[in-house]
């Protein structure tokens, strides 16, 4: 789960990381008031779940409260990568002597959290790591012991020359580890970590992603979910326990299992059309789930045909067929539905579907070709 910068700052602050003051606002009048209270120049930052906010014009420096207000008026309501900006963060503009990068994420290949640090801050760390690996220090944290003090120092010592900066930096490395662990993060990043003219090391940006599997035991973090930035269909799917991702094509896909769902999307593309979505309905034959899935798929107006691809393993095909027939009786669907079922009891399932007036298939290639053809006819 992605969270906003202002929420990530709260997590950082709770872990002790020095973060400049700042407040969130949703109107330009509020922004002016906050800027007035902070005094001096401020930065107005769009709060959306998208990278590249600066380039998109979503981060602006203001020398006065009036200017902050007018920047906010521009940024609020702006669309960045398809997301509407509904809130901005207002923080004091900091004078910067140097910028560094500090982040921690899960390294899949090594089964361990990985710290990444670089003196080159404020930039794309993946590019720095690729082009100039010598400018990056990496440290795997052994999950049995956690981050050890000398390891935090080793990272800070790479970032700074001045002993006071190293000391402050080492403390922040430890605090970032604590923030990462306590929030159940999959990634936590300070970019940039700055040194001010007064010699203070501070985090002037905060980015945290949460491991979805942690949410059940972190109610305070789960509250950070911003449903306004989540498409309605994705929200409905999540609440129904279905896994759905909207895509740009016109073949609505309803599949059991994530791998088979991806393979179905790929096959739609292979035969010349594009999938409208990823949707995994899971292993159940429950008609309620099928109804919800059909509602979600048909809420997308670009869908021209609905394609079911079900492999009946433990769940028997005839059960799934009955579930589909029952669901389509309960709700009105105005576009063609094509169904492929294979596996346990497939012949029985085909009869159930044909008796209910559906065209049913056992071959994945055949049904996808049929669905692709129907998008052209529609």
């Amino acid at each position, binding site marked *: 789960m992605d969270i906003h910068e202002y929420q990530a700052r709260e997590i950082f602050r709770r872990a002790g990381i020095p973060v400049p003051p700042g407040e969130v606002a949703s109107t330009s009048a509020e922004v002016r008031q906050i800027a007035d209270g902070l005094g001096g120049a401020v930065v107005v930052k769009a709060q959306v779940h998208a990278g590249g906010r600066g380039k998109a014009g979503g981060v602006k420096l203001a020398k006065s409260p009036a200017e902050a207000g007018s920047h906010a008026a521009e940024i609020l309501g702006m669309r960045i990568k398809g997301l509407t900006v509904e809130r901005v963060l207002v923080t004091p503009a900091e004078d910067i002597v140097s910028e560094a990068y500090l982040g921690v994420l*899960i390294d*899949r*290949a090594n*089964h*361990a*959290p990985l710290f990444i640090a670089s003196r080159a801050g404020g930039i794309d760390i*993946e590019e720095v790591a690729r082009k100039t690996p010598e400018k990056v220090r990496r440290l795997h944290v*052994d*999950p*049995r012991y956690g981050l050890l003090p000398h390891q935090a120092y080793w990272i800070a010592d790479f970032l700074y020359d001045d002993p006071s900066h190293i000391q402050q930096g080492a403390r922040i490395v430890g605090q970032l580890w604590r923030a990462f*662990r306590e929030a*159940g993060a*999959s990634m936590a990043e300070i970019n940039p970590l700055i040194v001010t003219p007064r010699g203070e090391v501070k985090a002037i940006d905060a980015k945290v992603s949460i*491991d*979805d*599997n*942690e949410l*059940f*035991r972190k109610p305070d973090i789960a509250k950070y979910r911003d449903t306004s930035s989540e498409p309605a269909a994705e929200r409905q799917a999540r609440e129904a326990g279905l*896994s759905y*991702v909207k*895509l740009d094509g016109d073949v609505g896909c309803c*599949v*059991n*299992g*994530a*791998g*088979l*769902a*991806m*393979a179905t*999307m*790929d*096959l*739609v*593309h*292979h035969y010349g059309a*594009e*999938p409208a979505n*990823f949707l*995994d309905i899971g292993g159940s034959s429950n008609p309620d789930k099928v109804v919800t899935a059909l509602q979600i798929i048909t809420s997308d107006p670009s869908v021209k045909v609905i394609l079911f691809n079900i*492999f009946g*393993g*433990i769940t028997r095909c005839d059960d799934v067929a009955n579930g589909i027939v029952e669901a389509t009786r309960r709700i009105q669907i105005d576009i063609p539905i094509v169904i492929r079922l*294979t*596996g*346990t009891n497939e012949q029985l399932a085909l009869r159930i579907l044909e008796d209910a007036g559906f065209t049913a298939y056992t*071959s*994945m*290639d055949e049904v996808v070709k049929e669905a692709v053809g129907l998008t052209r006819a529609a």
Partner: protein
Amino acid sequence: MSILIDERTRLAVQGITGRDGSFHATQMMEYGTRVVAGVVPGKGGTTFAGPRDQRVPIFNSMDEAVRESGANTSVVYVPPAFAAQAIMEAADAGVGLVVAITEGVPVLDMARVHAFMRDKGVRLVGPNCPGLISPGKCKVGILPGQIVAPGPVGVISRSGTLTYEAVYHLTNAQLGQTTCVGIGGDPLVGTSFVDCLEAFSNDPETRAIVIIGEIGGTDEQEAARFVKEHIEVPVVGFVAGQTAPPGRRMGHAGAIISGGSGTAAEKIRAFEDAGIAVARRPAEIAQMIGSALRH
């Protein structure tokens, strides 16, 4: 032969009284798996009623289960909040293989578990996986027993139903399997493609291998390197998620293209560079294995 599980497997089912645990314990017993113990804290001394009047003793702890029943393998069906401790408990009790079916285990829990398992020298398959099946001998997990058949093909996959799809085609084409392993869809899994490839390379009866990968991570790229250097039998690969958008999780916690890396295209390229025949459609997998074995 087969890898990881066979007729010598003596299985303990952790969470045998839960909805999934009880259903699949019955299915495994019907398939012929020797389920010798159930483990549910607080229910020790009772029994689980399996098919054909078979009764399985239930123990409070894995330690007791291993001592009393001689279990050498365990399968975990407990909820995500307790899965990590159940896996470590099984490793401590002395089994050689733990298969974790549970989906939704926090990644930081799993990082600790993997370190623990390495220290103990115990193999973990999963979590968030369908388990394994050695056709005609043993099944551990949730794979449907009726779609497999004994034969010469080793199958490894990160997915569930997509594996069933591929295996079903293989079986229908008279291409049976030595063992099918679902390694799981999480970002951190205990057994990698490379671990399975290594095991298959030591199994003389495995005469061809299918690798079913998907977007996210670099397990396929590492598998490609291993195949190039160590595998002599024909290998057919498939990668799901060519049309998946970057930055979005596609159902499985580990199926995500992040920072432009983990794409299907780069995995397919790695397979091809290693001489692995790449199927473009799931139905091609069995055709390609069939023609490789005829040569």
